[in-house]
């Protein structure tokens, strides 16, 4: 059941992105989609609207980039609770640092060993 929920919610979030690309008159690129999802994830999370999605859909809400935004927002809030103003600056990145570091390391490693195929 948990798996099915993850599938459905994740699929819906992606389908929404596809509709944004196809149905809006603007030229929406992957860059726009990535930025849009992360920032809306942060805002929704701050308003308390994203946690219910995570509770219901699990990975279906955390794997899409809006989940990355959710982690950023929760990290910032957590940071403020523990360390005040300094936490507001560092909390977001601290909470997502593992993912970002992995991406940097792998970006470099893959670029070293693989060849672009075109």
């Amino acid at each position: 059941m948990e798996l099915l929920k993850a599938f459905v919610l994740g699929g819906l979030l992606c389908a929404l992105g596809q509709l944004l690309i196809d149905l809006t008159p603007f030229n929406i690129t992957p860059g726009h989609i990535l930025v849009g999802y992360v920032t809306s994830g942060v805002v929704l999370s701050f308003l308390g609207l994203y946690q219910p999605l995570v509770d219901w859909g699990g990975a279906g809400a955390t794997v899409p980039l809006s989940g990355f935004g959710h982690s950023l927002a929760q990290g910032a809030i957590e940071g403020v609770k523990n360390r005040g103003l300094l936490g507001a600056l560092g909390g977001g990145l601290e909470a997502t640092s593992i993912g970002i570091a992995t991406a940097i390391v792998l970006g470099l490693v893959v670029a070293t060993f693989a060849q672009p195929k075109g």
Partner: protein
Amino acid sequence: MAQKKIGKQTFQFSSVPVITSWASVVGPKEGEGPFGEQYDLVLTDSLAGEKTWEKAEQKMMQYSVELALEKRGLLPKDLDLYLAGDLLNQIICANFTARFLNTPFLGLYGACSTLAQGLCVAGILLEGGFAEKVGVSASSHHNTAERQFRTPTELGDQRPLTAQWTVTGSASFVLERVGTGIMLTHATIGKINDLGVSNAQDLGSAMAPAACDTISTHLEDLGRSEADYDLIVTGDLGFLGSNILTELLTQKGISAEKIYDCGITIYSPEQDTHAGGSGCGCSAVVLAAHLIGCLQARFYQRILFVGTGALLSQISAFQGESIPCIAHAVVLEAGRGDR
């Protein structure tokens, strides 16, 4: 009054320069297309044994010149002038090819109209008696264009249905003042047309008005109608641009029955390129591999070859500028015997 100019934008070459030799080199995808057998050289992979795609494109251009020269029994030093262009910043492929040839060189930039532009300029120089033999090349490469104008090639994005596929290919032509070959009789130099299309993924719509303008001006200048040509060839309007051109010409009372677009014919529909092919190489390799052969075999007597170019840069695209487009036309006629 300019002596050799007719009407508003058309030059007449009364000494009739001839295209005496030509060659085309393409990538593997083009080799699988409808003209696969007709290209002089089909590369087995898009890197052509080089380290980078830019080097591969440069090599393609160089190979095509070498092949064209060899077919005619010439050497680079026999050329009085070499004219070439490509899509990359500062036309690096053309510059490096000219470095290899070590001949006097004028670089051209006309985006996808580069070949037609080169033929126009070569015609003018030969007619004017400034040269006996001129080489003209144009090239493009899918991966070099993609990474320069759009996104990294490995990025998993979806191309819209209006997008065209940049052709990996290069073709070269040798033009001579006297000789046997395909005759170059007229050239119509185009004006920039910009009707506000700014979507870099929809170049067909942007270029169609330029093609229409040049074709109608050409016919008007020479007092000819489309019936005087066996074919009106456009460079790379693709399916969308070609449909729009048909509509625009019909509005002007010109029949569009003989329109033939290299961007449509270079790939077969199964190759899934969306709106068709594009790039400097597109019209160049179709002309060299297919159309010129048809003229030589007298299957066609006279064609109007219209190269269309979308003169955008990645900077102008990011700044939201619309796309200035141009089209140049040359009249090519079936062979003439020795004089």
